[in-house]
Each structure stands twice: as structure tokens, then as C-alpha cells.
């Protein structure tokens, strides 16, 4: 049996992505006003956060912008114990949040509790937990202008 060789290959490539009108307005509003904006479909009345230019259910253009409160109810969360290259340091929690007044689940980081005690944290992040957005000090027009959502009350 000959020796089995393995070569290391590295790609390091930068990209630029146009976020478009809907997402630009959403992120600028997070950055400048600390306000979460959604779009509402005039046909089916669903409110989307992040906003979308067209309703995914009706394919109607959505130009009705609404301000959404920075509060919601946790539908589900997962507490990650391992970091990966480019991701946040572990442990960290990702949640699916039903923001008040919306029809979508907003995905974001959940923090503000002790995540190192996994079983206790699971209880604190159970379905139905009320959460509120915690804003970043430095805001750059990114989804992380909301640093995380934290359980309230």
C-alpha cells in the first residue's frame, strides 16, 4: 500500500452582495432608529420580518411598511455547545421568535441568561418565553445591530 497523500487547499475570497431595497431599509432602520420594520401584504394581511418586497404566499408587492415592537414570544431555541470557524463563541443560543404583530418566525441569538448551565437554560428558553431585543452599542446596518434577544419578566 502506497502512502495516502492529503493536500491542504485554502480559498479566501471576498464577495459583495446587494441587499436590495427591502432589506436595506430594514437594516438602516435598525442602525439609525433602533426600530424593527416589517412589510405587510395588502392581499393576505401577513406581516413579514425581515421585510420582503413580495409576499411569498400571494406574490403581491408589499409596500405597506409597519413598525414592529422589539418584543415577541419564543417558539423554539437551541443552545449550541460548539463553535465553528467564523461563528460566535460557544455556548450560544439561537431562537425562533414570533415577534408581536408578525406572521413569521424571526431567527436571532438569545442571550442574557447563563447558558453554561445547559439544563437550566433550556427551561428558561422554553416555548412561550417572552423576549425583548437588546441593541448593540455599535450599529453598522447589520442584523447584529440587534445584539440578541433576552428573556423578560
Amino acid at each position: 500500500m502506497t502512502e495516502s497523500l492529503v493536500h491542504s487547499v485554502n480559498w479566501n475570497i471576498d464577495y459583495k452582495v446587494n441587499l436590495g431595497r427591502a432589506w436595506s431599509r430594514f437594516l438602516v432602520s435598525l442602525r439609525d432608529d433602533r426600530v424593527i420594520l416589517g412589510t405587510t401584504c395588502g392581499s393576505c394581511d401577513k406581516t413579514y420580518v425581515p421585510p420582503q418586497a413580495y409576499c411569498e404566499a400571494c406574490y403581491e408587492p408589499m409596500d405597506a411598511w409597519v413598525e414592529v415592537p422589539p418584543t415577541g414570544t419564543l417558539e423554539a431555541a437551541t443552545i449550541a455547545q460548539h463553535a465553528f470557524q467564523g461563528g460566535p463563541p460557544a455556548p450560544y443560543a439561537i431562537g425562533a421568535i414570533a415577534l408581536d404583530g408578525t406572521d413569521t418566525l424571526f431567527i436571532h441569538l438569545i442571550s442574557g441568561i447563563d447558558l453554561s448551565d445547559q439544563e437550566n437554560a433550556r427551561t428558561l428558553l422554553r416555548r412561550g418565553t417572552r423576549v425583548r431585543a437588546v441593541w448593540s452599542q455599535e450599529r453598522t446596518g447589520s442584523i447584529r445591530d440587534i445584539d440578541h434577544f433576552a428573556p423578560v419578566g
Partner: protein
Amino acid sequence: MRNHAAVAGVGLTATTSPGRQTASKTELCQEAVDRALAHSGLRRAEIDAVVVGNIDGFEATSTAGRTIVPALGLAPGTSVYIVNTGGTTGGGVFNLAASLVRGGEAERVLCVGPSTFDGPVDLQAVINTALPVAMEQPLGIDGVHVGGMFAAAYQSRYGVADEVLELCAAQQREHAAKNPYAHIRKPLPPETAATPITTPLTLGMVCPVSSGATAVVVTTETIARRLDRNPVVRIAAYGSVADTHLGTGRHDFSSCEVLALLADRIYKDAGIMDPRRELDVLEIFSPYAPMQLILLEDLGMCGRGEAPHLVRDGSLHVDGDLPTNLSGGPHSTNPGVAAQLAPVAYIALQLMGQAAGGVQVAEARRGLAHSTGSAWWQFHTLAILEKTE
């Protein structure tokens, strides 16, 4: 009368971890293709189209599929098709082959499911790139977190204990132990299996990174009959579906609504009224073992929240009334596109009466193969195979 597409032969390689693999991806594909052709009785020169799967980002090249095809010894001028739909690439390869045959574009199509995950040093960092740019990539989400979110949502909605999730893993590993093509064939030591990954998933519930390849030969039912090598397995119905890309577009993580829609459509195509009773064997794509619960419900095998009963009462074993993932599924063997094509291969072997490892379902006449993947399990494919007389 329609000349249906049929499975003429399948080829699976042994699987191992990428670190122990001595063959290149191309060499693995050559081996799988050799086996599939030998199994079918077709010669290389008779192949008139090849469909190969590829998932962007997992290879140290942007043209992986295309680099494999010229090494397969096919006739010059053979049509080449590349499928690239994330976690359903393997299922999509098979569906496209069936479409080419049904539509009369080709008569003998080779499906190639390469080994996808051998390369990346940090696989989860690559999977993160499948998440929506700007909105979800920056949140530290990778494949296993998607699996965790669905499992957590299902668990909290229906009050399912961790023990049920562990049982899902144990049963699939029990099946893998008998499958000569499976990667993880021994249970992990309990303390290793209990290592937290992302709640509620532990190491024992998540798939390994595997290396191996799968190939399948699809032809017309007439040619399959003429070849007379294997019982003829008709591709009775197949299809694919996509959900929204954003996790934030969903309303619920305790089910995959689009899979239920797809299942309704293809059951109708296959003339199936009662899937639980009329399907003899299933291979469903659950790299995170508890996914099985959600998928079984979406596929209409039981009501919402009832799948834990199927796991607890032994229905999913070879002697149960709904044998599921007798191969061990991708939870025990996950070489990427090869694993997504494998459900079709295992179902075809069951219907041919050639299942390896003592897991042959008695009188299996009809089976279902599923694959899913991409961000938040956005895509799904299904195929229903039937043994014809």
C-alpha cells in the same frame, strides 16, 4: 401504455471517515459506477446520459461534478447533467434521471452520487454559507443547529421526552449495525453519546461525516425487463418541492409543511390512498435522528405528535408494520450526495429482494425514498418505487 422509468441496478461503496479514506472522490465514484453497471447488466458504452450531483462550497473546486464525469469511461458525446440542490442533490439526481427516461430524452441514465464531505476542515463553517446571507449567516447557524431547532420545536409542542429522541438514534444505529455499507456500525459509549451538541441534540443523535459513493442506473421498464438481471423496479412516482429560504419565513419548526404537500401529490400519482398500509418500506433522510419523527408525520404515516408511538412500539423495525431506515439512514452514514442517493438504492435492493445484512422485508412490493436539506430543510424529494411482475 406509458413506458415507465425503472431502476436497473445500484452500486454502493463501503464507507469510512474522510480521515481514513485512501481513495479520491473520483476513485470512489468509479467504484460505485462499476458496481451499479455490473448489477444492472448494462455496458458503459450503452449509457446515453449521466447525471451527477454537486454541492457548492464543499469541494476545493467549483466544478466537482464535471471533473468526475470524464473519468467514468463513458462514450464520447454522452449527455451530462449536474444537479446542485444542497441536501436533496442525490434525490434530485435520481428524479432528473427518471424524467429523462420518461420524457424519452435518454434510455439508459447513470446517476452518480459523489462523496461530498471529505474536504472541508470545518464542515459546519461551510454549511453556514447555505443559510441566507446577511440575515442568518451572521447568527452562527449551521446544519446541526437547524436540526436542533426542529427537534426543540417538536419536543416542546408535543411534550416529547429526551428519551424518545435517544430511542430514535438507538433504533437507527441498531439497523446500521447490520448494514455492510454503513459507516458507524457500533453504538457509541453512553457517556460519549451524551456529549451535548446543541439542545436537545447530543453526539449520539447526530450523523458522522462519512466518505463513500453511490451510483444508480435508471432505464426504461422495457429495457430493464430485457436485461433480466433483477426484478424490475418501476419508478411509480417522484417529485420535489421547495419551501422559503429564510428560517424567518416559517410559521412552525415542528413540521415541514411543504413535505406534506409533496407527499399528497406523489401518493396521488402512485395511486396510493393509505400510505401507512400501502408502503412496505421507507428510507427517510434524518441525519439528526429525531428528524424521523417530524418526517413520518409529514409523510402521513400518523397524526401530528403521534410519531413517538411508532418509535416506541417497534413499528419501524424490519418485522414492524412500517420498516423505516433499515439501512441505518444518514444518521449512521452521511457522505453527502452519496447519502442522498442511497435511500433510492436501498429501497430498490429491498424491492429486488436483495437487501444485505438480514434486513430484507418479507414481500416488499412498494417503497418510498426521501431526501431533504439546504437551509432549514428547504428542499425535499420523494420517489415511490414498485416491484412489477
